[in-house]
């Protein structure tokens, strides 16, 4: 019985953090029609901000999260301006989706190696946001850090949902996702909206990075694993829809928790990727089985 509780608890925690990182990728795919391969390095930057704020300067944890949000928002906006905006005018003659896959990938390489250059190759220890553990069921305990991570992730995803459903700029993001020309003809300033959207998505990953920093250290390659995990969630959930991404995030979280408890962590990612491989072969476009136009 304890196994099941452990699987569920861990599954929900993993699901939340995967959701936070993957939902940014879906938001970007929905509006810009690109797969942002630099999202992993935003998690890495979040980790370093967490290390800088918490380990070396003992800043209040909440402030560290806000700082990570702001820093990665700026880096995300710059990434869009450097690797996507120059290509938007040339949608006709260049395979836009593929080229931006490469240019965001290149930015990911750049950021990883700038971090390597600046912080050195060794892993840095990031203190947890909140210390202490909670006993859930005899034998099964969860750290307060992980609980806060899940809580903040759900909070941010909820806030994103409300922003899209209620606010003027949320409408504009959804409108751009569904009919770019119609949105522009109504006055939506696309050349400012695109960078801001990528900034927002990167900021979500940055906040996630602070939490993951405590679990897996801050290091130049700290972004690779979250990128691979987010790709799994995005493929499963279908690139277009936020709700699809949410379901997929928790499904992957539960699968990972199951593998870790029953089989052992080394086999977790191979199993997840094998699952993806099988799904893409049987249902060519993820669980929904059809190329996903943006739902947002």
């Amino acid at each position, binding site marked *: 019985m304890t196994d099941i509780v452990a699987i569920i608890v861990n599954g929900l925690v993993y699901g939340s953090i995967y959701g936070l990182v993957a939902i940014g990728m879906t938001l970007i795919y929905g509006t810009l029609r690109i797969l942002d391969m630099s999202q992993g390095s935003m998690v890495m930057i979040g980790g370093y901000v967490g290390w800088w704020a918490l380990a070396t300067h003992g800043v209040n944890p909440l402030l560290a999260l806000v700082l990570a949000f702001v820093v990665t928002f700026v880096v995300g906006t710059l990434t869009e301006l450097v690797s996507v905006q120059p290509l938007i005018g040339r949608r*006709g003659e260049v395979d836009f989706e593929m080229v931006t896959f490469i240019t965001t990938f290149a930015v990911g390489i750049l950021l990883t190696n700038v971090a390597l250059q600046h912080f050195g190759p060794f892993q840095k220890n990031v203190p947890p946001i909140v210390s202490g553990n909670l006993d859930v069921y005899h034998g099964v305990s969860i750290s307060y850090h992980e609980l806060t991570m899940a809580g903040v992730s759900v909070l941010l995803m909820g806030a994103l949902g409300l922003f899209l459903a209620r606010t003027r700029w949320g*409408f*504009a993001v*959804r409108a751009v996702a569904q009919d770019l020309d119609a949105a522009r*003809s*109504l006055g939506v300033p696309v050349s400012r909206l695109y960078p801001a959207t990528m900034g927002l998505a990167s900021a979500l990953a940055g906040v996630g990075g602070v939490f993951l920093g405590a679990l897996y250290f801050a290091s130049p390659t700290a972004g690779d694993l979250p990128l691979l995990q987010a790709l799994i969630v995005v493929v499963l959930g279908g690139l277009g829809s936020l709700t699809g991404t949410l379901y997929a995030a928790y499904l992957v979280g539960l699968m990972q928790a199951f593998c870790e408890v029953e089989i052992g962590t080394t086999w977790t990612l191979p199993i997840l990727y094998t699952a993806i491989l099988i799904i893409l072969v049987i249902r060519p476009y993820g669980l929904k089985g059809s190329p996903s136009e943006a739902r*947002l």
Partner: protein
Amino acid sequence: MTAALDVSGLVAGYDRTVVVRDLSLSVEAGKTAVVIGPNGHGKTTMLLAISGLIKPMSGSITLGDERIDRSSAESIAGMGVVHIMQGDGLFADMTVEENLLMGAFVSSSWRGRRETLKRVYADLPVVESKRDQKARTLSGGERRLVGLGRGMMRPARVMLIDEPSLGLAPVAIEAVYAAIAKLRAESGATVVLVEENFTHIGGVADVVHILETGSIVRSGSFDELSHDRTVVETYLGSITDVTT
């Protein structure tokens, strides 16, 4: 009377293919100009150039006394140009009300959006009855009315309407043109309406222009043109061919 909208020597198209060839057209303030022409001869391209969604290759477009052919679609929309696109350009996965609210996106109209929404619902009861449905679930005629309603959500100096009767059953076309007549009466905006066939524009057009292979070939009032050789020629092909 300075023209509300003046297009002169417009050349436009897509990457290298020129569709609009040296087109000139000026519309007096408050008047409705209807542009008629066979498919693929540049009607939609002309509107896309005016509203800035495509960059004109050469020629000038002036709104009142301001040149807009170099501005972005977003800023042209802010200057009061409303473009009701071909097909309707609705956001399929947003509700009818959300689509209408997007019509008032520009900052000057966003604050007063609730009142404007009430007025549009009063004018278009059909649209109000479907307010919470996703646009994707509506019929062709209903979608066209929502598109028009969205255009009415903010004050328009110039309104561009692209083939409102496209693919609609005759009864739906009547409802759409009734809405257009109401819109013209209330807003007093200058209207450029593009259509493929001739039947419905009688009650709406102050002046009619015939567009063929990318430029305006004839202009005149609706009555003059509807009994005119060249109009029949453009549409029906020379009758002599048929008898051989």
